[in-house]
């Protein structure tokens, strides 16, 4: 076998068409990895700058405050989901979901859903990252390298001479195709390996990603092999394979996405934001009990401290109606979260009909940029906000005397990854 592979490697090196497609694969891989690393570095720098500015800003905001309500009102708290050391390969949902929020002690759901994604266009068209290259472009390159292995030899009336000389088809076509698939895999993966080294990605993760790329190429090789066995001209084979690629890489994911989205309606983030703001704004004009009763229902431990005078302003009433704002939109926010998870789960099942979707999803999972990771970040923000409330409420509701020293005990946000 080694002799066959060595022969076909020499042969490949002289095939200008094949060399062009292989070099293109390498260049695209370098570009995808470089863009990915640049993007991840920019996000890390943004987070580093925000961490620094957030601490200074909070320190300024807390300085000179004289009550718990003002301190809680003016202080912002940075939350963020740092990109993983493999995110450079698959930006995934980081382009369509927020990975940083500066939250206050106010109603939270509106703060989560008011944030725009950094570049909404990416959310629509996707980004040219390594996952896209491996999932969608690499199969096209593989088709271009393999589609006419047999057909072009038939067209050139060389097929019988080749097979008669080789003795068996196996010792000819298998090594010829294997060399091309191996070359494509190596040229795609080498930039990924360099990128992983630069980013300090765990070897096991890089190995898994490499396995996914190789597995995807093997599946496409099988598809090309089956189609190219048809005794047809190279142009008919190419047209058929491109059609198949369009169906598998574009049509199947698009149709399944449309079906899944129709089956799992997700409320608009804007709806959540609007409802919460209306609830909070309305609270100003409602009797105080309309706010305090549902608040106490959720926090019976503050029942003895829920008396609010009808005249004037009290911070605990203000924060209670912020919390009630969250309580009112809770069903909508839960529906939003659950529907996204359901969509993701069903998309995972549908992905088995499209190797392209399967590869993209696998990469996003490895990179921690899939829908579940982004939802986990939102959950982490909610947890952190609960910690803030848990810090302030026992001081604010029993009306403990303000002590600036205690603010040093404010919970700090720690990202999950």
């Amino acid at each position, binding site marked *: 076998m080694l002799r066959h592979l060595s022969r076909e490697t020499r*042969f490949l090196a002289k095939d200008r068409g094949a060399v062009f497609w292989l070099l293109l694969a390498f260049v695209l891989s370098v570009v995808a990895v470089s863009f990915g690393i640049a993007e991840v570095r920019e996000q890390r720098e943004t987070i580093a700058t925000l961490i620094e500015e957030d601490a200074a800003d909070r320190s300024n905001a807390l300085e000179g405050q004289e009550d718990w309500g003002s301190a809680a009102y003016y202080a912002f708290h940075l939350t963020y989901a740092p990109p993983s050391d493999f995110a450079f390969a698959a930006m995934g949902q980081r382009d369509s979901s927020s990975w940083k929020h500066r939250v206050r002690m106010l109603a939270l759901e509106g703060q989560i859903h008011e944030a725009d994604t950094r570049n909404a266009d990416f959310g629509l068209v996707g980004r040219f990252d390594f996952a896209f290259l491996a999932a969608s472009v690499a199969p096209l390159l593989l088709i271009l390298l393999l589609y006419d292995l047999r057909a072009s030899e038939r067209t050139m009336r060389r097929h019988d001479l080749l*097979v008669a000389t080789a003795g068996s088809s196996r010792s000819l076509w298998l090594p010829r195709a294997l060399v091309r698939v191996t070359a494509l895999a190596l040229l795609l993966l080498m930039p990924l390996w360099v990128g992983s080294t630069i980013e300090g990605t765990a070897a096991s993760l890089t190995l898994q990603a490499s396995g996914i790329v190789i597995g995807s190429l093997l599946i496409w090789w099988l598809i090309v092999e089956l189609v190219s066995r048809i005794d047809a001209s190279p142009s008919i084979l190419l047209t058929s394979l491109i059609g198949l690629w369009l169906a598998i890489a574009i049509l199947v994911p698009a149709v399944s996405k449309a079906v899944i989205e129709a089956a799992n309606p997700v409320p608009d983030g804007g709806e959540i934001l609007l409802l919460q703001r209306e609830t909070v704004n309305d609270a100003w004009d409602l009797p105080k009990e309309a706010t305090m009763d549902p608040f106490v229902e959720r926090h019976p431990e503050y029942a003895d401290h829920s008396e609010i005078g009808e005249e004037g302003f009290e911070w605990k009433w203000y924060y209670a109606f912020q919390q009630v704002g969250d309580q009112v939109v809770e069903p909508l926010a839960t529906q939003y979260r659950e529907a996204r998870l359901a969509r993701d789960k069903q998309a995972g099942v549908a992905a088995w009909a499209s190797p392209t979707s399967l590869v993209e999803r696998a990469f996003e999972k490895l990179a921690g940029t899939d829908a579940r990771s982004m939802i986990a970040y939102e959950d982490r923000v909610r947890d952190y906000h609960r910690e803030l409330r848990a810090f302030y409420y026992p001081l604010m509701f029993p009306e403990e005397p303000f002590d600036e020293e205690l603010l040093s005990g404010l919970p700090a946000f720690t990202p999950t990854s």
Partner: protein
Amino acid sequence: MTSPLEARSLSLVREGNTVLDGVSFTVAKGEIFALLGGNGAGKSSTLLTFLGFLDPSGGEVLVNGKSVGSDVAGARNSIAYLPEAASLYGHLTAYENLDYFLDLAGKSASKDQINVALDRVALPQEARTRRLQSYSKGMRQKTAIALALLRETPILLLDEPTSGLDPVAIDEFHDLVKALAEGGQTVLMVTHDVYGACQVADRVGLLRHGKLVGSFAAEKGQRIDTETVHAAFAGRPHFQTDAA
């Protein structure tokens, strides 16, 4: 003694059409046997059954006494095949083509050995490092013949080997084939060139509509009579034949 090539009542039906119908012949070691016939007579199909590309619908073909169907790879290893208008790789030089195809056949040859073979087929020295896409048809054919020489197989199958060659190149080719046969190689060639077949072959078989309808053998030291074969080929009555 086992014949290197033998067809026993060979029949072939493709897509409902009878391509070969009970064809039988043997080719002895060192013999040149030419199968002559018009377009669609079944000549190339006969060669392809010996190479295992077509399975007989009836009868069998044997290479060195073994049925091709039972050992295709063994049969192919014994045969150097020169297809009509042999298309070697245009983007490779003669050296690179020969190196590739020899390796494919599981053989290797030094540059000197390759040069000897190319000298034998009279391929100009300056052409050997040029890509074949710049070659004339005759030069490409010579390179393909050099491949057959280098493979040193006991059997040579030639499909319209002189098609498109100029008269000088045809004569050179015939001399080469005769030399190979004298060296012990068995040659089965198919052609519609009556003159060429009579020039080079020890025996000529006439195929018509898939049937072997006549066979002509050369007298010792003589060539086969072209006129007789031409008359038979043209379908004129009362021609004399030997037993196939």
